[in-house]
C-alpha cells in the first residue's frame, strides 16, 4: 500500500537496465551483421572462413582475392596458446602459492598488487615488452642458437602470457580462497601433505571457478590488441611454428579500419566480418564454459 508505485517503478527501472545491457549485445550483433553481409556479398563465406591466404587485394580484373581468414585464426590460436601455456600453469601455481603457502602478510601485499597489475593497460605491456623483453629473449635465443625474430609468435605470446598472468592468478586465487576451510581440514586430517591436498582436493573442488578464470583470461588473450599491434607483425603466415611471425584477428581489424583504404571497400568491410566471427567465437567459448560449470555443479553440487 505504502508507496507501492515506487516499488513498481523501481522494479521496472531495474528491469529496463537489465534489458539495456542485453541490448548492447544485440547491438553488437546487429551492427556487425549489416556490414558483414555486405562483405559476404563480395567475398564468399567459404573463401573467408576456409581460405588459406590473407592478403586482401583487388586484382585489376576486379576480383577480390586473399580474404582467407584461416591464417589469422591460426595466428590468434598460436599466440593465444603460447600465452595460455605460460599463464595457465604459472597463474595457477602463483595462485596456489599465495593462497595456500604464503604467509597471510605476504598474501595481503601480493593480492592487491596482482589486482593492480591486472589492470595495467596492455598498451604499456605492449610498448615495453617490445623494447625490453623482445631484445632480452632474442639474446637469450642467440645464446641457445635459436633464431628468435622479434615478431615471432613466441615472443608476442610470451609477452601476452606475462600480461595475462596477474589477471589469471588473481582470478584463480579468488577461486581457491573461496573454498571452504573444511575441505583443507578434511584432507589434512587424513594425513595428506599440502600439495596432495591442493592437487587432489582443492583444485578439483575449485574446478568450475578455475575454468571460468581460464576462459576469461583466454577471451582476454584472444581479444587482446595492443600487444600484438606492437609486438607481432601483421604478417598473415599460415604456420604453427612459434618462431615465425603471425598475426591475429584483432590486429587486422585495427589495421584495416585505420589504413589508407577506400572506406566501403572490401578490405574495410572485412574488418567487420572478422569482428563478427570473433564475437561468435567468444560467445561460443563462454557458452561452453557455462555449460561445463553447470555440468560440474550438477554432478558435484
Amino acid at each position, binding site marked *: 500500500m505504502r508507496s507501492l508505485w515506487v516499488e513498481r517503478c523501481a522494479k521496472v527501472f531495474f528491469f529496463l537496465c537489465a534489458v539495456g545491457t542485453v541490448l548492447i549485445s544485440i547491438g553488437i550483433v546487429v551492427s556487425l551483421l549489416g556490414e558483414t553481409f555486405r562483405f559476404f556479398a563480395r567475398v564468399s563465406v567459404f573463401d573467408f572462413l576456409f581460405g588459406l*591466404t*590473407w*592478403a*586482401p*587485394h583487388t*586484382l*585489376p580484373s576486379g576480383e577480390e582475392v*586473399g580474404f582467407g581468414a584461416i*591464417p589469422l585464426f591460426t595466428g590468434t590460436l598460436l599466440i593465444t596458446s603460447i600465452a595460455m601455456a605460460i599463464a595457465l600453469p604459472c597463474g595457477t601455481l602463483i595462485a596456489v602459492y599465495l593462497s595456500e603457502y604464503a604467509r597471510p602478510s605476504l598474501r595481503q601485499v601480493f593480492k592487491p598488487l596482482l589486482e593492480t597489475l591486472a589492470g595495467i593497460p596492455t598498451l604499456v605491456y605492449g610498448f615495453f615488452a*617490445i*623494447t625490453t623483453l*623482445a*631484445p632480452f629473449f*632474442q639474446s637469450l635465443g642467440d645464446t641457445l642458437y635459436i633464431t628468435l*625474430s*622479434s*615478431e615471432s609468435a613466441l615472443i608476442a605470446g610470451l609477452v601476452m602470457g606475462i600480461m595475462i598472468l596477474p589477471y589469471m592468478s588473481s582470478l584463480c586465487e579468488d577461486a581457491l580462497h573461496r573454498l571452504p576451510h573444511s575441505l583443507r581440514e578434511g584432507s589434512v586430517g587424513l594425513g595428506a601433505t599440502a600439495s596432495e591436498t591442493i592437487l587432489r582436493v582443492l583444485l578439483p573442488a575449485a574446478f568450475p571457478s578455475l575454468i571460468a578464470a581460464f576462459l576469461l583470461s583466454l577471451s582476454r588473450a584472444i581479444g587482446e590488441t595492443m600487444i600484438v*599491434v*606492437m609486438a607481432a*607483425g*601483421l*604478417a*598473415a*603466415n599460415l*604456420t604453427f611454428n612459434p618462431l*615465425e*611471425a603471425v*598475426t591475429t584477428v584483432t*590486429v587486422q581489424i585495427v*589495421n*584495416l*579500419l*585505420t*589504413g*589508407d*583504404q*577506400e*572506406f*566501403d*571497400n572490401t*578490405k*574495410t568491410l572485412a574488418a567487420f566480418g572478422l569482428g563478427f566471427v570473433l564475437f561468435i567465437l567468444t560467445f561460443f567459448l563462454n557458452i561452453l564454459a557455462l555449460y561445463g560449470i553447470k555440468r560440474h555443479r550438477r554432478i558435484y553440487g
Partner: protein
Amino acid sequence: RLAGSSAIFPFAARVAEYFHYKTQEPTPLIEGLGTGAGIKLFCEGTRELDGVMASRPFTETERKKCEQQNIDFQEFKIGQDGLVLIEKKGSQFFPIRIEDLRSAIAEKVFVKGQCLKNPYMIWSQIQPSFPVLPLRILGPAPASGTYDVLLEKIKGPCDSLLRHDGIYIEAPANENLIIQKVLTAPHTIGIITFSFYEQNKNRIRALSVNGVLPFLKTIQDGHYPLSRPLYIYIKLNDLSDHLNRLLYMREFTSNDAIGKSGYLTEKGLIPLPQSEQRNIQKDLAQLFKTGGSS
C-alpha cells in the same frame, strides 16, 4: 579541421601549431584516422571536416560520393614521401635495384619465362654479389597506402602481391618499432618513410635503390624510385565563411614550411620542386580571390 592519412599527420600537426602561433587562431584539429576513413568522413558531408589528408589521390567512387553530397574540393599536392630501405648501421652495404627488391618481396617472380612462387631465401640467390644472408624484410601491411605504393613500384610481369611466407614481414603501423627491430635483429632490411629515416640517421643507414641514395634532392627530382605523393584536399563549400582553410593552406605551402630549409623539410617531408610549389601558391591565391568574392 583535417582528418586522414597518418603519414601526413605529423606534418599537418606541425603546420597547425605554426598556424596557431602566427595567426592566433585556434589550433586546427588533426586526426590520423587513415586515408580511407578520412575521405569517408569528408565525403559524407555531415561532418565539420575542412579537409582531408591523403597519401593517395581520390578514387572514382570517392569522387562520385563527394559530388553526390555536393562537396567541392581542391587538391593540393603538398609534397612527397620517400620509402627508404634501411639497415642497421655497420651492416654490410649493398646497392639494390628495383628488380632485386621485387625478387626479394614479391609473391610470384618471373623466372625463365614463368611466374613461379618466390623461391628466394637468401640474398645471394638474387644476385651473386649480394651477401649470403637470409632474406628478412620488414615493411608496410596490406591495408596501408605505403603497401599499395610498394606494390605499384615493384610491379613486374607477374601480377603479384607481396610474399607472405615469413620473409616479408608486415610490420605494425609504428615505424619506430620497425627501426627497433632492425636495430635488434641484424641482417634485417626495414622499409620506412623518409621522416623516420631522417630522425634516426645516426643509427640506421639507407640502401641505394637503382644506384640512387634517398636524399631530399634525389626524391624531389624523381631520381629515387620509391616515393609517393602526399595530398591535402580542401573543401570549397562556403569558403567565405571558412577562410581559415585557405590561411592554413597558405601556411602549409609557404616557404617557411616546405621551402628548402622549411620546418617541414627538416621533419622529413620532401618538398615539391620550386616550379610546382609556385603553381600551388598561385592556385591558392586564386582561391582567395574567388572565395572572398563568392
